[in-house]
């Protein structure tokens, strides 16, 4: 054998010849050259064509086979069984003895396994999917409610001393969800403050009420923008991380391992994240508020020719404690939603990496959705109680 590393076999496989001749009821299938996957992939159609014939007997002349891999062995076997299955006598001639063991192995016990091409009608699939989605939605609501309950129980356990707080985990989560988010939260809130003030001043100037820009920025940042924007950023960066972290642990069976150690995944994995977010989000909202106001102040100074003092005096006159209070009150609620939804989706991951991705997306969409719905409810509530 020559000293190539397979290039020659591959090249030769491009030349493998298949000759099919029929003489007097005898079909001769002659193969010359290496019968490896390169050759078979090319000749597969011809092999399939050949078995459609109905001769009296078949001779497969494999004397010219110079190399055989399992793809080749399978084709030989498939071809000969296609004939013998119909009662046609088949003879395999000239195959080198060293290949016979491989031929023996090349065997599919039940080739009629459904292939992934056997898909049902598209219309049925779509209808079924829509129905399934409806049920899923109901189930998600129920599950999430159940999980809320679990976390409450776990929190109560913490108060009664049944479970202990995992302090190290809490601190590391606090750093991750709180400290590391300060930069992005303050930058984005600052920019939104700038945009609000800028757009507001352009409109209000036309009524000669440019000074009211300060009121606009103050109230909207403190009541809505600060908390909503922060919650959305945190849902995107921490809620998704919760799902991915817990989901990956689920895939690696780490969560199962926890259970066998007698530890509750809710206590060990969910609580530290929940409490960390509970503490961190109000602080982040506070920082976001300041940053948003700073953005407004910058534009006021640059566009409206106010001094910082004038801006602050105007701000003080236009907002009261409850403008700030309503914003900051919402933060722990949103934190709870984001953490619970993220962890819940993480624990629902099953098996595959794909599922981790799917659940992560779901966690972000779901938590932002719930946050905005709750925000609307809060707005109505605060309006009704008059704060």
């Amino acid at each position: 054998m020559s000293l190539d590393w397979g290039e020659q076999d591959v090249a030769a496989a491009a030349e493998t010849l298949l000759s099919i001749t029929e003489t007097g009821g005898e079909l001769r299938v002659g193969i010359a050259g290496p019968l490896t996957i390169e050759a078979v992939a090319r000749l597969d159609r011809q092999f399939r064509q050949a078995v459609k014939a109905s001769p009296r007997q078949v001779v497969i002349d494999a004397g010219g086979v110079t190399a055989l891999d399992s793809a080749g062995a399978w084709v030989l076997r498939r071809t000969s069984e296609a004939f013998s299955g119909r009662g046609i006598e088949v003879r395999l001639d000239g195959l080198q003895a060293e290949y016979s063991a491989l031929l023996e192995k090349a065997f599919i016990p039940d080739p009629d396994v459904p292939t992934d091409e056997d898909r049902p009608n598209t219309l049925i699939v779509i209808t079924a999917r829509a129905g399934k989605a409806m049920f899923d939605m109901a189930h998600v609501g129920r599950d999430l409610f159940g999980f809320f309950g679990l976390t409450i129980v776990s929190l109560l356990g913490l108060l009664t001393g049944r479970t202990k707080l995992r302090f190290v985990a809490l601190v590391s989560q606090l750093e991750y969800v709180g400290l590391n988010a300060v930069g992005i939260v303050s930058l984005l809130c600052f920019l939104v403050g700038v945009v609000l003030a800028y757009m507001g001043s352009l409109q209000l100037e036309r009524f000669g009420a440019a000074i009211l820009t300060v009121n606009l920025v103050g109230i909207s940042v403190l009541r809505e923008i600060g908390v909503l924007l922060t919650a959305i950023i945190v849902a995107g960066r921490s809620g998704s991380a919760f799902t991915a972290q817990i989901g990956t642990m689920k895939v690696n069976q780490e969560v199962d391992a926890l259970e066998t150690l007698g530890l509750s995944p809710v206590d060990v994995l969910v609580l530290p994240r929940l409490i960390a977010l509970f503490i961190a989000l109000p602080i982040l909202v506070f920082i976001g508020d300041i940053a948003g106001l700073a953005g407004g102040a910058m534009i006021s100074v640059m566009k409206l020719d106010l001094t910082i003092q004038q801006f602050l005096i105007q701000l003080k006159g236009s907002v009261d404690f409850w403008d700030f209070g309503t914003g900051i009150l919402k933060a722990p609620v949103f934190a709870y939603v984001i953490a619970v939804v993220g962890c819940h989706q993480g624990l629902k991951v099953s098996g595959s990496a794909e599922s981790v991705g799917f659940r992560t997306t779901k966690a972000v969409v779901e938590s932002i959705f719930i946050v905005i719905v709750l925000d609307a409810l809060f707005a109505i509530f605060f309006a009704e109680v008059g704060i």
Partner: protein
Amino acid sequence: MAAMTEESFTSDAASPPAIRLRGIRNAFGTQVVHDNLDLDVLRGEVLGVVGGSGSGKSVLLRTIIGLQIPSAGEIELLGEKIEAGRGEMPTRKLQGRFGMMFQDGALFSSLTVAQNIMAPMRERGGIPKQFMRELALLKINMVGLPPNAADKFPSQLSGGMRKRASLARALALDPQVVFLDEPTAGLDPIGASNFDMLIRDLQGSLNLTVVMVTHDLDSLVAICDRIAVLLDKQVTVGTMSELVANPHPWIQEYFHGPRARAAFEAPGLKG
């Protein structure tokens, strides 16, 4: 059988080895795993790799296929110099010519078993879809999985079944060199010996070169032509009989423990 395989790699003795390692050094931080390690894997042989847990067997395999960049030394795989760390993965050039079965399976979790096996075939291209499916079913049967495993996802399989599925993927294209990291761990004894025979058969008809990490003394006896022992950051290579005579205490203990004796008493002992 021993005679046949002996011949199949010694007759090519003048040919360059399929794999050539020279002066390999691998370190993680301050922990040196391999130091000045030399290894030749001859063409068409089945080389067993043994060594204690954490002695660097998996790291050695990863180094050979270019997943782990050694801090020193050179590697030649199928006559191709693997220059790790030069951007392009060297393994890409050799795509389809070698297969790797990872210690913990590393199946693509979002694909079914059949799709996992078809993945390397898809990459190669030019193979009709129906034929790919047949080949996948063939490999599934070859490694001893039931046909209904084809459309299951890896998460729906048992540990041993995942192992077999991963072997089936490594063998998908009948590569010239296969690396197997503890292929028979977690298989039942019948499955394990069937697997040994499968490797032998494929090796015989395809002139496969096999590098296999195993602690299964039966496999070592039954199918390995030579054995590489990872000891003190280097390898000691020899046939079974050479190693049995080696005075190193670890080797002595390995090949003379009660398990080893049981394996040697079984028929098929060579050397």
